């Protein structure tokens, strides 16, 4: 809401990408790498605030959420984590690792038909990360990583609320395809650092670590 608190000693690293892009695995390895060096590091993930957890799960279970309330309840969740964890930790000099950040919301909510300009202003209270890693995989790769095990897809996760298809798997395909288009259109606008996520995990991780080390003076984040 205010834009004055951008002077802080911490660093913010966010990962974005389709479900099945391997971004959470990569971020976990970054966390381990930083921890093993004794750095002050904090990990936060999307949709995890305790405050609105009940409302979110109730809304999802009973399918009460429409695109606007879906968007706002996630924005509330994010704001709670942002104001109580992310920003204070940045000000306290932590490296904050975010598994998904506002770009996930921008992509999903745009796919659900909300005005992009409105959503980006809604999230304008959040500081932009120092690095946004975008894990890029072809749609078919991410789909097969998720769908090959025939998991039980949740209603909103599959995008069934949008009525593209009554088949959860088909709906998920359509949904992910649309998310991919949104991510692609955000890449240059928000300065994503693209990682080719079709490669082996340790190869990607080596690149990610190198890029982080180039941008962030890691030794200065060691706990004293």
């Amino acid at each position, binding site marked *: 809401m205010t834009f004055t608190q951008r002077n802080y000693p911490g660093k913010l690293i966010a990962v974005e990408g389709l479900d099945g892009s391997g971004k959470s695995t990569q971020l976990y390895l970054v966390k381990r790498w930083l921890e093993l060096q004794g750095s002050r590091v904090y990990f936060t993930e999307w949709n995890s605030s305790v405050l609105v957890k009940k409302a979110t799960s109730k809304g999802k279970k009973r399918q009460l959420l429409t695109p606007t*309330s879906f968007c706002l*309840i996630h924005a*509330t969740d994010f*704001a*709670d984590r942002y*104001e109580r964890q992310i920003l204070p930790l940045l000000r306290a000099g932590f490296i904050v690792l975010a598994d998904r950040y506002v770009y996930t919301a921008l992509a999903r909510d745009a796919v659900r038909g909300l005005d992009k300009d*409105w959503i980006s202003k*809604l999230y304008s209270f959040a500081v932009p990360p120092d690095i946004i890693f975008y894990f890029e995989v072809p749609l078919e790769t991410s789909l097969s990583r998720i769908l090959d095990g025939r998991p039980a897809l949740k209603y909103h996760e599959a995008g069934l609320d949008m009525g593209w298809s009554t088949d959860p798997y088909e709906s998920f395909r359509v949904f992910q395809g649309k998310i991919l288009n949104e991510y692609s259109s955000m890449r240059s606008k928000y300065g994503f650092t693209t990682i080719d996520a079709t490669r082996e995990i340790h190869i990607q991780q080596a690149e990610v670590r190198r890029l982080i080390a180039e941008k962030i003076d890691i030794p200065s984040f060691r706990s004293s």
Partner: protein
Amino acid sequence: MNEKHFFGRQPPEIRDARLPGKLLVIEGADGSGRSTQIAMLSQWLEANGFAVRFMGLRRSNLVAEDLERAKQGNVLTRTTLSLFYATDFFDQLVNAIIPALRAGLIVLADRYIYTLMARDLVRGADRDWVRNLYSPALLPDAVFYFRVSARQLVERNFQKNSTLDYWESGMDLGLSLDMFDSFVKYQRMLQLEFQKMQREFGFKLLNGNRPIVKVQQDLRKEIAALLSIGAPTEVSAVDMEAATPEPIPAPAEEPV
């Protein structure tokens, strides 16, 4: 015909903005007499054959309970508080207000986005951010703002509850450790925001310090014109019974 308008771009859920009902908003602080006036209005509207629905803040199916719980815990930071209320508001707009208006009902809103915006603004929110947040809201057919002096509000709140409410006193703002002091300061800040909005949005200003019956007569006159009802009936004894809260004595003081 009957096309309704939105402050900005309408939400994607609303494909058809032809809504024959009317959205009438009553704004004013706690203790300004909103609920009393709304009860009397609905009585009169139903007597004239209009179907009425009510809406208010923190009444959505989705988040009302969680919001109430969060307010008890004092864990809410300001952006979170703001977005929580916005979620509640838009859930009601999409799932209750719009369907009622589509069915041709009169929706009486006990507060609307103006209170929500004023609360955010006095907490230091960015003006453009707040405007953007509420821009998918429906533009009401009329907004009546009850202005009551801060001192009068204190008296009425004590008559109703015998204590002042933490949030309605703006205690989270840290204006004063003294609750009475904080209440007065906070209500004055809200009134200043309302004055700005009144000019911009063309609220109909009503002096809420006057007797209930006088305020009700003015309201009916305005609404009768809006709904093309003939000469508004006088406020009767039956109407007064609809006003469930204790009648409030008229003060001599002018609004601040």
